[in-house]
């Protein structure tokens, strides 16, 4: 598997530029807070205006603005797990996870996604009733269910106390080992990613 990406964003007083080509499957972007790591994910996902963006997975072009290929966010097939999760408050856990199913060709079943994050039986719960760790696992399952080409994890372990962090890490490892999806993840804490990422890129 080869992943190639490049991004350049420049706004008034802020500029971030990164480029990488690797045959690693799990890539970690590291750097201090404010270095623009999240901006890179958002730019590649089509959520913010960019000067240049390019993402190629195994030769398949997801986005390449230089070549005029710049599909809207909903056509990029990027599973994005946001740092602030963004679970839909008006939908149950099952409806959150299954949200993307109606839009994509071969979605993963809600039950399978729930199973992967060990949340069987949580389908009828509401997001408000979940603990921080559970909500994070729901967000991961939701991104998986839409059967993405690549998974973006934005600070997947940030804001959790050490116990919760230890509890979530196995799921991230399982995600890495069982889904065979390429993963681009972001962290400001190198310790987080030491045992998850195949390759680490310093940003900023």
């Amino acid at each position, binding site marked *: 598997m080869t992943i190639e990406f490049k991004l350049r964003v420049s706004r008034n007083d802020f500029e971030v530029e990164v480029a990488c080509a690797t045959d690693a499957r799990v890539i970690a972007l590291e750097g201090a807070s404010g270095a623009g790591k999240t901006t890179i994910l958002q730019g590649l996902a089509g959520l913010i205006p960019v000067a240049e963006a390019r993402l190629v997975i195994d030769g398949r072009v997801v986005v390449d603005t230089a070549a005029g290929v710049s599909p809207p966010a909903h056509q990029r097939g990027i599973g994005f797990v946001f740092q602030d999760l963004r679970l839909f408050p008006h939908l149950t856990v099952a409806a959150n996870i299954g949200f993307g199913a109606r839009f994509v060709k071969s979605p993963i079943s809600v039950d399978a996604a729930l199973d992967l994050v060990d949340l069987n039986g949580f389908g009828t719960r509401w997001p*408000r009733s979940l603990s921080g760790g559970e909500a994070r696992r729901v967000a991961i399952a939701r991104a998986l269910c839409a059967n993405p080409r690549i998974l973006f994890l934005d600070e997947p372990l940030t804001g959790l106390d050490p116990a919760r962090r230890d509890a979530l890490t196995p799921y991230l490892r399982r995600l890495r080992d069982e889904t065979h999806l390429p993963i681009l993840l972001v962290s400001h804490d190198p310790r987080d990613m030491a045992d998850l990422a195949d390759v680490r890129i310093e940003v900023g």
Partner: protein
Amino acid sequence: MFASLSAFESEALRLSLLVSLASLTLTVPAGMAVGYLLARGRFPGKWMLEAVVNLPLVLPPVVTGLVLLLVFGVNGPVGSVLRDTFGLTLAFSWMGAALAAAVMAFPLVVRPIRLAIESIDQGLEQAASTLGAPPWSVFAHITLPLALPGLIAGVLLGFARAFGEFGATVTFAGSIPGETQTLPVAIYTSLQRAQGEPAAVRLAILSIVVSILALVASEWLNRHVTRGRSAG
């Protein structure tokens, strides 16, 4: 009491409900569009749109009615076109009363919808788009349901304002029994008659009952749509 409604009373009630519900078919879709535009849009002249929308709140209702008469009256610029092309006369018809009620209620419909849309975390819409939802689906599945409490508030306020509309209605549509004599107009007409007060009081009670029913219905709806969201 309802069993013994006179023809005059039941006619006024029927007409009031017809006029206010008809006005909602104008104000709710337009209110969604304008509310969305005001909440999200960035365009030159936005303040002007806002001012025009809110104008009926500050103008004397009779003046609004007069403006409607000048524009939509038989000889007005819009009214004459409507008459010549569709054979439609709004002034002094129930449709005119509905239009007057709609114009008066419009700012009250727009405001809660706008506030509701403004309060939606746009990050949720972004999340939906990364899950493959095209813009229209994002609106239908995320924006609209999350704005629903505001929409319900807008419908209630719009209905209540239209149901109670007097000044603009009387000016633009007159007080024709069975055509434009809504409950408020009928109350006023009753008071003009000798010993008309008991009749006016009966009509007033009728108005209060409808208003309370509307309030209860909206409260129930609101609870229904927000179930789960706010549960601990």
